[in-house]
């Protein structure tokens, strides 16, 4: 059974994205193992001496590196992903590269109708950056709109069609996971570039 890391983009109380990632974990039980980690509680990203990382970052990085893939549930704040999630990704690409070639599935829940479409577009670009270099599935936004009414008391998505869509996307994602595993031995074209890169400031 594949092992995935699940990340919610915010630790805010009552976050529907936390609900979403919890649902995904539960929904995939028996099909895939989803381990939840918190990347949103670290200090504000800044350059450190010798690329020293705050406590807890390396541990999460190692889990990601070891996993078959990552599933992210992101809110949309001001047309983008929250600073708290940006911050997690910033530390997780500071001198370390756990996301390198890592399959990432992107999901998001929003209170309104747009379902985090812009945040998802943004995070795709961020995951594309050389120091992260993740692998996302194209044309696969999974969006939960009007999220405050989308879950029942047990935290399950009530819209059956939406759950079906998730299953279809997840099936595609698992294909991506297989493909990437096969490519894992291939050389990184950008490896030399990444070595030259210093975080800009």
């Amino acid at each position, binding site marked *: 059974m594949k092992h995935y890391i699940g990340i919610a983009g*915010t*630790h*805010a*109380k*009552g*976050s*529907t*994205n936390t609900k979403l990632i919890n649902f995904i974990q539960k929904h995939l039980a028996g099909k895939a193992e989803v381990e939840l980690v918190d990347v*949103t509680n*670290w*200090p*504000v*990203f*800044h*350059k450190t001496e010798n690329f020293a990382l705050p406590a807890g970052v390396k541990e999460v990085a190692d889990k990601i590196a070891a996993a078959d893939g990552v599933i992210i549930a992101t*809110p*949309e*704040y*001001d*047309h*983008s992903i*929250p*600073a*708290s999630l*940006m*911050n997690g*990704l*910033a530390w997780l*690409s500071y001198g370390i590269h756990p996301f390198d070639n890592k399959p990432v599935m992107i999901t998001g*829940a*929003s*209170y*309104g*109708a*747009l*379902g*985090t479409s*812009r945040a998802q577009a*943004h995070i795709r*670009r*961020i995951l*594309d*950056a050389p*120091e*992260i270099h993740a692998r996302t599935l194209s044309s696969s936004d999974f969006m939960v709109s*009007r*999220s*405050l*009414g989308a879950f029942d*008391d047990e935290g399950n998505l009530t819209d059956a069609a939406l759950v079906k869509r998730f299953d279809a996307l997840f099936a595609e994602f698992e294909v991506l996971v297989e493909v990437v595993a096969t490519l894992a031995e291939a050389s990184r074209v950008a490896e030399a570039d990444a070595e030259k*890169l*210093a*975080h*800009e*400031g």
Partner: protein
Amino acid sequence: MKLVAIAGSFDKGSYNRMLVDFMAKEYTDLADIEVLDVDQVPLFDRDLDYKDFPQLVELNAKISAADGVILATPEHNHTTTVVMKSILEWLSSDVHPFQDKAVMIVGASYLIQGTSRAQADLREILDAPGVNAIPMTGNEFLMGNCQDKFDENGNISDEGTVKFLKGVLAKFTEWVNMVNGTGVVEAAADDWKNEDLTASGKTDTTIDVDMMSKDWVNQASAKVNAASDRDYVKLDSGVLSVNQLNWFLKTMPMELTFMDDNAQFIYYNHMLDRDDMLAPRYPWQTGMPMSEVHPERAKDGVKYVIHQLRTGKKDLVEMPVPGNKLNEKWIMHYYKRMADDNGQFRGINEWVLDLWPIVKSYLDMTGQKLVQDPTKAVDAEGGASSSAAPATPAVDASAGASEEEATPAPAAPAVDASAGASDEEETTTATPVKPVQVETTSVDTAAGASDEERDDAEKGIPDAADEAVDTDAGASM
């Protein structure tokens, strides 16, 4: 103009911080720029209260008070930084200092891209409903290879870049004025150029007779059957015959000229022959439009003064002429706005006189002497640099059909008529910005817009409707 600047990094040696520090130091003639610190801003968390963090409180206050904001963004992972995003999240939740705020984006990067992606993302973020800033379009500034661009004192070493950035900042000051509505005033500053000195229109007192005729006075009188000689006219307040009016006006202690609201020169009090006048003119010039009684070089100044008075921006314009001599001769031209009972502009009363004899007689009467005030610098010519000598809308007999040698006419009129003129006069040489109606964002209750608001609601913008939907979620805050 007061601007604040924020760099999206508090790293020591941050080039984006260096960039805004440089701008604040270098471009003081364009704006007063204050760079704000961001190192104590916590990661945005909707469960926390911004008021508990003094630096956030200060950021909110200073941004609210500023005319505009400069954001300098590094690029991390193809986007703007955590610091920048976090600040914007804070300042778009419980408080909204960026609402309708003019913003300028710059960025410095180690690599060639020069923060191109970060800046694009930042624009999208500034567009979001909780932020609703008004970032300047175009006029990008991207600095690549920043580690090579600054000297050891934090100054940009390339002159070309310093100049270029100054140009972008100048554009931003225009943007700020436009956004803040002060731009409309700037644009109107160019209207004076439209003053018609040719009197091609008419006013309700215009007499339909060839303006260029050297016999205009007689022709115009005949046309309207004007009162003359012993005919009486009822004035406010008195009754004078035309002869009496002439005696009276000709003994005024100044040369008087009447320009009507159609820019036609229709009267002067002809107390002296032309050669003895302070502002010389010939009787046959009466009736001509302003364009015919001023040399080309004076016309801009004429337009400007007429415009100031026509629009009521000024009620009186005062100008010394070139050639004055301290404590010997001080000829002044005064242009006074004339208006009817409704305050409508009805022309300009120009009077010209030499102030010195008046001052001298006062000093003689009171037994006083003049001394130079050491705190004020006035040059002998007329209180102004001679290169920007004032124009005079006075009839200048050297223009038009004069056969004589031109009198020493005033020097080239400056658009900047503040030279030598009264202190109240304000001129601007800034490139005016086209006035644009800046619409304040209105709350749009149509489905689309309110959905946008609600998309952002997960960030913590309170929405009572959401709370009703799901009481289980805890407050949507």
